[in-house]
């Protein structure tokens, strides 16, 4: 029996002939590890970049967004479980080569290709090949991920990814173990590595009532961010909606999100956003220097943008970190 060990994610699944990894989409076939989802796209949409969410990347641009089935985590609150927790043959797929994806992005005037919705790590080879072609075509790559990945594949990926929104689901390892079937440390390492590699990183923390919504949890999370990647990495607090295996919990009260934002601001994080709550001012960007409103958002629509292509506040000239042209 030829056994293989997958080295893509920290689960390092050891697979006997015919067995699939925990992600459901990598298979030991005759002693070779095969990806079952290369070019098998189960979701493709043109989204505003604000939906990823990325608030400091080419505001109001379009992201050609793709996903395949599969995920290496199994979060009980998953919003896209219909594709992430399925085997590849259970989803409705379209065959799209990397060339097809880049051509579609170009034809639809998308400035970025986003690898998103499920967990792009599990379609790593497809993402890498597409990202390489995208760069050749002058299109940037966006990675929306939980970043539960080994160091070596991440190193290679960082050369191709321009911007990433990374989930930091909690600052407690028990939460990752019990709610997501993963672990915290590899995610923290990946965040630090991505930032140090020059990938533009924004973080998302989904606040789930009773599970990770205490002041202590949020304070510790913010302190880790400030201490390890700095105050200029934007943080998005996202609202939980009852879903998948956590339908028994209520949606996150807006007050909890506002309190989380206040804690993050008090911990000196410069750019703190609230997501999944229409109509809140916490979706806007404010200049940390002159305190003025510099990007006004209504949902995913950008109503006002006072950040110049040079990445400076039009009002005071303060440098706003991000990708602006």
């Amino acid at each position: 029996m030829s056994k293989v060990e997958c080295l893509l994610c920290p689960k390092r699944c050891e697979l006997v002939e015919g067995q699939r990894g925990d992600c459901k989409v990598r298979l030991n076939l005759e002693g070779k590890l095969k990806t079952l989802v290369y070019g098998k796209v189960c979701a493709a949409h043109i989204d505003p970049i604000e939906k990823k969410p990325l608030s400091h990347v080419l505001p109001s641009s379009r992201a050609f967004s793709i996903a395949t089935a599969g995920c290496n985590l199994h979060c009980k609150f998953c919003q896209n479980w219909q594709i992430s927790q399925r085997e590849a043959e259970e989803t409705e797929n379209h065959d799209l080569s990397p060339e097809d994806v880049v051509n579609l992005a170009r034809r639809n005037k998308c400035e970025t290709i986003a690898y998103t919705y499920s967990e792009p790590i599990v379609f790593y080879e497809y993402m890498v090949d597409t990202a390489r072609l995208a760069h050749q075509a002058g299109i940037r790559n966006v990675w929306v991920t939980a970043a539960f990945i080994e160091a070596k594949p991440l190193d290679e990926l960082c050369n191709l990814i321009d911007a990433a929104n990374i989930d930091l689901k909690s600052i407690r390892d028990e939460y990752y173990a019990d709610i997501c079937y993963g672990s915290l440390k590899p995610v923290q390492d990946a965040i630090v590595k991505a930032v140090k590699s020059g990938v533009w990183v924004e973080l998302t923390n989904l606040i789930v009532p009773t599970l990770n919504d205490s002041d202590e949890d949020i304070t510790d999370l913010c302190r880790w961010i400030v201490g390890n990647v700095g105050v200029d990495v934007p943080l998005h607090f996202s609202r939980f909606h009852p879903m998948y295996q956590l339908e028994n919990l209520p949606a996150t009260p807006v007050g909890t999100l506002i309190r989380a934002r206040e804690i993050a601001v008090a911990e000196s994080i410069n750019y703190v956003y609230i997501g999944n709550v229409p109509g809140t001012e916490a979706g806007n960007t404010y200049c940390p220097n002159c305190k003025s409103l510099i990007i006004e958002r209504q949902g995913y629509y950008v109503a006002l943008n006072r950040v110049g292509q040079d990445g400076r506040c039009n009002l005071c000239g303060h440098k706003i970190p991000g990708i602006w042209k």
Partner: protein
Amino acid sequence: MDNKKAGSMTRREVLVKAAVGVFGILLLPFFPRVRKETKREEFLRNISDVEASHYKRLAG
């Protein structure tokens, strides 16, 4: 006039039907039943030939 009772067959009819049946059975090996491919089998037949990039073979 046919003196056959309703619903009964003559000896000749019985023999013809039996011969047809035997002939049919003898033909079966030439027409094997085609099993319909499952969705999973069809999917696996059509996966790309791309090998995963980060793995190692284990001894034993």
